[in-house]
């Protein structure tokens, strides 16, 4: 099984449009949307939901008002600024937990002299297995303000791997999140290949350099493609020339093309919609497939 993860560092460079197009071009894949904060892939692949599971993760502290004696131990000991004091005239203060700030560490639960803090499990979102025209899809939705997006990403990815094995599907395509921290790390660890989508802007280059350092850190084979290259041909050229020394295989340039937004608004992959960008995306996918074969070859010889 091979697994391509599309990431970018910077947001909004075209990850989802590319991932959806790759799903179309590959025929049958298992597709996973690991951008659990802002999952957009379903808007293009119109999945039919077959299974829906709650994402339970961690706990949240809740102070029982009637049992609180107002000593303030919880506030003194909380390091996440999650306890608020409500002063009351002529009575001791009341303390309440701000659930958005609570890290679920349990320190207040443990140290409350009255045992007045409950610690229920928290539902942090949901994840789904669906059917699309291009194969099964696993996606999720993190609850607003929730923690542990990395854990939800891992669930989505593991489920995608499991389905691929069960159904004997050889390719998993992952639409990754922006950034470089917890959800990105959870999306790429152990992947067979990462594709970084860069836009030719100074911000794009800055963010690409950080995300390449990350893929090197985890020793994951990395391809690079430039989206909207005409925006700044000079920077696009510099990225292309610098790709190899940065440790990435250059996989192509994609045209700045209004049909990308048009396809998005129509809810279909760019390659299905057509246009100059669609042609470029086909070439990028061919290059990724080629690169993937070269990775698999030495492993086969060893075996």
């Amino acid at each position, binding site marked *: 099984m091979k697994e391509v993860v599309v990431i*970018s*560092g*910077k*947001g*909004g*460079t075209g990850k*989802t449009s590319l991932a959806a197009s790759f799903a179309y071009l590959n025929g049958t894949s298992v597709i996973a949307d690991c951008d*659990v*904060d*802002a999952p*957009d892939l379903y*808007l293009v692949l119109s999945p039919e939901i077959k299974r829906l599971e709650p994402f339970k993760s*961690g*706990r949240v502290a809740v102070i029982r008002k009637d049992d609180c004696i107002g000593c303030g131990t919880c506030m003194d*000991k909380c*390091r*996440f*600024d999650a306890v608020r004091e409500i002063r009351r005239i002529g009575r001791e203060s009341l303390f309440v937990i701000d659930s*958005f*700030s609570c*890290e*679920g*560490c*349990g*320190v207040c639960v*443990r*140290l409350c002299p009255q045992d007045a803090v409950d610690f229920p499990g928290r539902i942090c979102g949901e994840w789904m297995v669906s059917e699309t025209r291009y194969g099964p899809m696993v996606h999720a939705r*993190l609850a*607003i*303000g*929730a*923690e542990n*997006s*990395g854990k939800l990403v891992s669930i989505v990815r593991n489920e995608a791997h499991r389905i691929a094995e069960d159904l004997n599907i050889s390719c998993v395509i992952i639409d990754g*999140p*922006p*950034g*470089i*921290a*917890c*959800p990105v*790390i959870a999306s790429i660890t152990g992947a067979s290949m990462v594709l970084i989508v860069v*836009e*030719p*802007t*100074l*911000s*794009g280059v*800055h*963010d690409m350099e*950080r995300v390449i*350092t*990350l893929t090197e*850190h985890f020793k994951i084979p990395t391809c690079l493609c430039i989206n909207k290259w005409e925006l*700044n041909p000079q*920077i696009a050229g510099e990225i292309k020339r610098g790709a190899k020394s940065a440790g990435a295989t250059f996989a192509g340039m994609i045209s700045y093309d209004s049909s990308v*937004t048009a396809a*998005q*608004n129509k*809810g279909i992959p760019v390659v299905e919609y057509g246009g100059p960008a669609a042609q470029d995306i086909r070439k990028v996918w061919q290059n990724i497939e080629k690169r993937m074969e070269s990775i698999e070859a030495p492993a086969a010889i060893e075996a």
Partner: protein
Amino acid sequence: MIVAVASGKGGTGKTTIASNLAVCLPRPKRLLDCDVEEPNCHIFLNPEIDTTERFTLPFPIVDETRCNGCGECSVMCRYNAIVTLQSKHLVFPELCHGCGGCVEVCPENAITEGQREIGSIHTGTHDHALFVQGLLDVGQALCPPLIYAVKRHTATNGITVIDCPPGTSCPVIAAVKKCDYVVLVAESSTFGLHDLRLAVDTMRKLNLNFGVVINRVSSADRQVAEFCRNEQIPVLLEIPEDRKAAEAYSRGQLLVDVVPGFRELFDRLCERILAEFHHS
């Protein structure tokens, strides 16, 4: 007044809005770049950085000679950062959230805290105003503590602009928490509308005042504007799709400096934000 610039979706123009806003606002003002995974404001503002400090998080260090192997610390730890196996303990600093629970519960007082570096804070000036940037080290997973540390530079007078990370999860909450007003930047597209809805839900759950800037507006696509009208959300500004603006952005230039008409657009945005804030 603290103004956060946020969005559900990445790449909608948060940094563009935050940095152009930061130059148009009256002094006293300051800008805090809280997108610590991928901070970009410095590219547009070219601040002079005077100080760089390393940012650390605590993690437990167990004094072997005092530890009695009771395992209370690992029972306490919700993050599996300290594990006891047959009265031997293992510490995984990268999993530690720094809650201090293990220190509190150890009956032998055998646990102290060390510090591990996870990023840095750069402080400087731009246009006679304070500029602060948080930068997470590559390979680190946990960013809210660094965001909170950057936010300690919030001014008590004047206006503080905060450039937020994208999304709706914990880093965004850390960045927008306790802000007086949030500017949500949405792209005029199907993805843009979808992610704006998520951002709006987040702001409402957090009880924050907010308005929307619609970016890259084409006359054909009114779905985001219509959504805002139906939801009675103030549209602070519509920025037209403009190839010149996109190219100036690619070169790291401030739109108010180089693209005709943008200075007026952002002056108007400043007035709108100040008015919305006083209104609320």
